[in-house]
């Protein structure tokens, strides 16, 4: 089974900016928020949240510089 065959994943991959990094951020977003809901505020969850935002901002800038 390919990732494109999974209902939610296929919808995400077909829409948007046609970029796997952004698609991955979109798909992992609920998991990160879910992790925070379950574990609460801790060093680990804060690091994960910072990594998520840094990846989003950094990758947007990287694409801009590369284009």
């Amino acid at each position, binding site marked *: 089974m390919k990732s494109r065959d999974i209902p939610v994943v296929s919808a995400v991959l077909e829409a948007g900016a046609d970029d796997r990094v952004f698609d991955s951020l979109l798909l992992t977003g609920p998991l990160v928020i879910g992790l*925070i809901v379950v574990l609460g505020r801790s060093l680990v969850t804060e690091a994960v949240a910072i990594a998520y*935002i840094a990846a989003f901002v950094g990758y*947007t800038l990287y694409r801009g510089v590369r*284009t």
Partner: protein
Amino acid sequence: MNGAVATVGRDLGRILEALGGLMLISLVVPIVWGEYFALPALLVSALVPLGIGWVLYRRFEGAEAPGRFHGMIVAASGWFSVGIFGSLPFLLIAWSVQLGVPGFSTPAQTATLAAFTEPLNAIFESMSGFTGTGLTMTDNEEVLPRTLQWWRTFSEWVGGVGVIVLTTAILSRPGSGSLTLYESEARSKKIHPSIVSTVRTIWWIFILFTFGSILALWLAGMPIWGAINHGMTGLATGGFSITDNSIATYDSVAIDFVLIPIMLLGSIAFPVHYLILQGDLRNFYSDLQTRWVFGYMGIGSALLWGFLYFVGPYETPFAALRYGLFQFVSAATCTGFQTAVDATNIALGRWPSYAQLTVTFGMFVGGAAGSTAGGIKLIRGLTLVKGIRHQIADVFYPESAVRRLEINNRRLNEEEASREFMEAAIIVVLWSTFLVLGTFLLLLTLPSGEYSLANVLFEVASAQGNVGLSSGITGPDSLPTIGKIAFLFHMWIGRLEIIPVLVMLRTIFKRGGVYR
């Protein structure tokens, strides 16, 4: 005409089915939070629009495809219907708590929730949510059941996407700004082939930004439930809060400053976001509206900072910057989050009149067309300014001169320029007319001497600009019934940019024989 009824009926049916679906999804919230008493009310609330929508859709399934005329009527009647049926969770949950639900334990009734046993208050809250306004009939949002906190947030979030879809995919016409957006889209390699893929991409961007907003707010120190709700309403530039004093409740510099870029994201046209995510960062300055989002927010905030610091009421430059910047951005992006309240500093309604009018001007202009912001939209303001300058300069050129008006890198000939200028002027005149009429009406119905003209103008501009900042007039008891009904109308026309509502009313009156 019957063909039009069928087309509108079919599409309205789909909208109501979608609304019912949103309510069914929201059943997760009372289950997670253990608010089981809200389950029957939310389920019934979902079944009503689902049932009506199903009947309408099945009845008119074979109707013709919609044209622009149908699109406007569907948008106007759809938003109105969603506002009405979206009030059911407020009404039914309030009555569930009031009367009790057999087999479920219900919490004690509060004055805040009891306000929603009045259908008009429930409809007001729902319309305020789906239009992204944020004016509220609640006294204290903190005591609302989590289910209703979520429904308020969800309505603004969905309404935010709805208005982007409306302006970029349905009402794309010269002067609305949408034509400009499509042309800027055309600069990229990938042009969306259909409305369906455009809508999907808008959702994609909106959801991605929502996750980022939630995490940023949480990192700034907001509890996760607050971050989820405020991240969603901030990006949707809706402004509903789950706390009693809006964002002022947190009294946090970090949260204030994290919310500013979130509100700005919501006020930039989403097709521009699409280009930026594709790596075309030049749009931050090459796109006229985006450039002006930053320029005009900067100028407005600096002006407000000057008023608040040099004339008062704030005594330190940082306090004036913190509250002035936040409140101007909140107003001009049409979000309506409030940090200037008496609980932590000085309430907006008690700011000097010129400071209030500066904020009112921000609400009047609003953000970019194709975003979630309200107001007349930056593109219209800029079209008007450039058009007026063009007309005046015309006097200095010989009659034989061929001149072109340049807007957002588009060179318009005389006919195109005249058409865009006219459309922008019509919207601005209508907007101003309804603003003045609403102000008169509110002045007549409010107790004399209790509120200043600046307060009243501020409140009406806030409703019509879908902002949600309040000078203290809006409330279940403080706003008279006529004022509530008028505000429902203001929020409705403000969200739809007036014309679709007038088209719908003309059609209804003409069909009923009232107007010929």
